[in-house]
């Protein structure tokens, strides 16, 4: 999945899109090394930072990992599931629609 996501981020450069992770690993040193080694060029939240009582995954009722949520420009949920390909297809569709909307507004 890393390759697909890296590919998507590169394809969507300078377009109204962001890939944001929520990472579950508790060993920060280990995960930072992985991010560097595998060139994961997107930002990730820590799921349960030190001192937190509630994790992001608890708030978002995430039952299985990985889970992918696609959110539009108004923060509405447009996809939620485990299928990376479906999520990427939805992203491309929404980015295209948003760009057309922005173009028509002269943005």
């Amino acid at each position, binding site marked *: *999945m890393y390759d697909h*996501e890296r590919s*998507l981020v590169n394809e969507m450069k300078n377009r*109204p*899109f*962001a*890939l*944001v*992770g*929520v*990472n*579950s*690993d508790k060993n*920060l040193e*280990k*995960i*930072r090394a*992985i*991010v560097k080694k595998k060139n994961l060029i997107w*930002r*990730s*939240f*820590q*799921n349960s*930072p030190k001192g937190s*009582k*509630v*994790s*992001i*995954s*608890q*708030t*978002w*009722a*995430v*039952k299985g*990992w*990985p*889970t*992918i*949520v*696609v*959110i*539009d*420009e*108004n*923060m*509405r*949920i*447009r*996809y*939620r599931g485990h299928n990376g390909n479906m*999520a*990427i297809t939805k*992203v491309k569709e*929404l*980015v295209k629609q*948003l760009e057309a909307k922005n173009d028509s507004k002269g943005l």
Partner: protein
Amino acid sequence: MIPEPKKSETFEVKRTIASLLCAVFLTTATTWLPAQEGPSTAKAKLDALEKAYKESMATWQKEERAKIGSWKEAAKKAKADGKDVPSMPAMRMTPPKAIIAKHVKTAQANALEYAGTDDAIPFHLWALRYGSRIHDKEAVIAAADALTSTHIKSSKLEEVPLTLSYMGRLIGQDKAEAYIHKIEMNSPHADVRARAILARVTNALQEKSVDSMAYKGAKEEALRAAGMATSAAIKAEVKGLIDGRENLVMGKVAPDIVGVDLDSTAFKLSDYKGKIVMLDFWGDW
């Protein structure tokens, strides 16, 4: 004028004070010196049990892989010699019961050693979980009986109701539910009772249609559990369960995330408002 004490009297006073101090030390030492037996020893035994189990599993997996390795060699040789290739040996997907059974027995022995104390609880839980993997009904029932009778007043039972909820297939759904109900009715700890309620209703909350009476009833019970709980994690779990069905769905506005990145720099999901965001819950396993 007060006469100065004689040197011998001063020595006697000092010796008396020293003796008194020793007596105080010896009579109170048992209360403030760390005990020879106690949580640290039980923890060490639990860690040792986990380690031994992982090592058994690793050895078994290595043996299974070696079987395939040997077959590949034999197949290669057979092909080279123009002979029939032998059939690939069947690989077990689960370890032989005997491997896990011996660790369940260790857990049971440790539970007996710490019988009546909170230190026994993790070992009973271990026997419950791993006993169920090998369909050892007797071990599971023995652990469940101990946890819901001897330890019913303990504050350390939070993990027990959910674990019991998975035992229905092995020991019968009614029996599993009876154990959970016993915890709900008899634990003096709000968080333990809340966990028992959640163990009872989570399935309906996750599976039943949001318009159904079953879902609405489960939601009411889950909210009651969240109301009684002191634990922020329980409250968040209930909120997450309900949000997951009612609010974190297509078309609804996503809640903001206010957090820190992997370099511990603060940022928010709403920083990306105006863009299409793919939010990926991931880990490197």
